[in-house]
């Protein structure tokens, strides 16, 4: 049972990383970016392709890939956020939702064309630690630690830097933030860049733990979106905790029920949560 708990925590760490990026985009720009999971799949594919050139560790590759994902985030901003800035709030949410779905579908086919249907796995052997009689897989533990560090650094960035403060101000009140000289376009662009980096990291780490299909992007996005909704938008602590919980729920559902019913249990719980917490009376 404790082994299941540990396994769930490790999976939850990756989900948390994925959801934290999405929370930034959702909280600051109000964009339901359905292409977020596709960026994670792209991270996994890039990592796998790079291993042919040089045996990078996931950590080194994460650092090297960060600027690429930053640029991708900026391109994504120009595609799914910037064209709709003149629409009303609700219309822009719908328009960016449709546009990001379009981007996700395009990326899915491109991934299949580039990589084939074969699942992406970058697993490599790593020592297993024994702690109080429990077997702790070293790779998972180190990846969980790295995810925690990445989330911690993002929190520090949001709290201590000018750009981070601008992002938080924009998330709280767009008009007032603009009055104080914060440029909404540039700030939301950098928020989406940061979100893309987080998605890329999550994809790299996920593929080191589990195989990831080229069409799994939307599935990952949906899980991340539910985590964000459950944990709260615009802050990083809530989604991080909710991500850990999702990992635990998945692990325990797989342990108590069949492996195929895991998704049913997870999505049912998430829909129930959504209905209870985000119904109009409770907003």
């Amino acid at each position: 049972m404790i082994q299941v708990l540990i396994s769930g925590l490790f999976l939850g760490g990756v989900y948390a990383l994925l959801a934290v990026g999405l929370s930034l985009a959702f909280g600051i720009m109000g964009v339901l970016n359905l292409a977020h999971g596709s960026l994670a799949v792209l991270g996994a594919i890039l990592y796998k392709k790079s291993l042919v050139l040089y045996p990078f560790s996931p950590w080194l590759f994460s650092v090297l890939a960060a600027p690429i994902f930053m640029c991708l985030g900026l391109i994504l901003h120009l595609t799914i956020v910037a064209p709709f800035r003149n629409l009303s709030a609700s219309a822009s949410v719908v328009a960016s939702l449709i546009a990001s779905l379009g981007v996700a579908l395009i990326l899915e086919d491109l991934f299949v064309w580039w990589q084939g249907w074969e699942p992406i796995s970058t697993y490599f052997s790593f020592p297993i630690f024994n702690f109080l009689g429990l077997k702790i897989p070293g790779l998972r533990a180190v990846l969980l630690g790295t995810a925690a560090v990445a989330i911690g650094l993002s929190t520090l960035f949001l709290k201590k830097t000018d750009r981070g403060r601008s992002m938080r101000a924009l998330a709280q009140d767009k008009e007032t933030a603009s009055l104080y000289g914060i440029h909404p376009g540039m700030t939301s662009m950098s928020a989406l860049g940061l979100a893309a980096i987080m998605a890329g990291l999550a994809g790299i780490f996920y593929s080191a733990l589990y195989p990831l299909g080229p069409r799994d992007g939307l599935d990952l996005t949906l899980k991340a979106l539910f985590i964000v909704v459950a944990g709260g938008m615009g802050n990083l602590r809530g989604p991080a905790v909710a991500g850990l919980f999702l990992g635990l729920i998945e692990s325990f559902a797989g342990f108590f029920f069949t492996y195929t019913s895991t998704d049913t249990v997870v999505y049912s719980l998430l829909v129930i949560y959504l209905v209870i917490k985000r119904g109009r009376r409770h907003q």
Partner: protein
Amino acid sequence: MKIGRVSFLTVILSALVVSAAYFSEGYLGIFIFSLIINGIMAVSFDIPGRSLGLISLGHATFFGMGAYCFGISISQGFTFYPALILSALVSAAGALVITLLLAGLNHGYYSLATLGILIIFQRISQTLESFTGGSAGLYIPETLSNLHCNLLAACLLLATAGCHVLYSRSRWGFYSKETEASEEAAEAIGIPTRKVKTLCLMMSAIPASMAGLLYLARTSYVSPASGFSLTLSITALLASRIVPARGILGPLTGVLLITVAEEVIWTKFEGFNHALFGLILLGAAWYQGLESLEAGFNFIKKGFRARVYFSSDFEKNKESEIRRR
């Protein structure tokens, strides 16, 4: 509705019904049938989409529910019409439960929850192998001739289109518009917003489940991937958004374009069908953005004219005042 638009609409609907009757066999028969099914899905999707601003990414849930209810009833030994009535009732009850569950959600949350429900139903249909055939899908014997299936589907499309028009022009249609604009304000003036949402979503769910039922009757096969298909929801979304026309003309014209495009994409660009759909979605969204830019530009132009008008008026008033003094 202008006369031109009405006549265009009549031509489209009559052409669909006549071609459904004439071309029931072969490739053309299947194409006409899929055109009508896509039409039902798009028009039913458009009812809450246009009046309440709710985008259901899981609209195919109702389609799959209708198909599976019908398939299970037939495999349990029912004949066509009792199975039709039973599955219509069961899927309507299921749709009511889902609708009541989701009626409290707005915009993004609603889209997200419907997508979640679609995945839940997909996984359940994969898990309950003894009833649904699992991932391999469900086969049923032929219960109705192709001609009858096409005609029933055409009648369903006409009924759905009629419901769309009647609803948007009825008291409830105006209530929906008011609810979309501001739920609090609508409640303050005595509109039962929950009832309005439930009615509107039910009007969208029932035709979709009937479409699923007819789809299975015609093709004799449904699987979790084809019944609870995200692509089907996206097709409906695309068809209802791609043509910026008011009323049901938008989704109907959109369906014509999308179904033809779908055929070309499936046959000529195999392996890139999702990507091409994605491009069309992106184009539709950008078009909306461009429209808003144009509206913004017009607004600035109008504002500028008004300012010029007011300033010239002010100058004139000032001059006349000076003269009077």
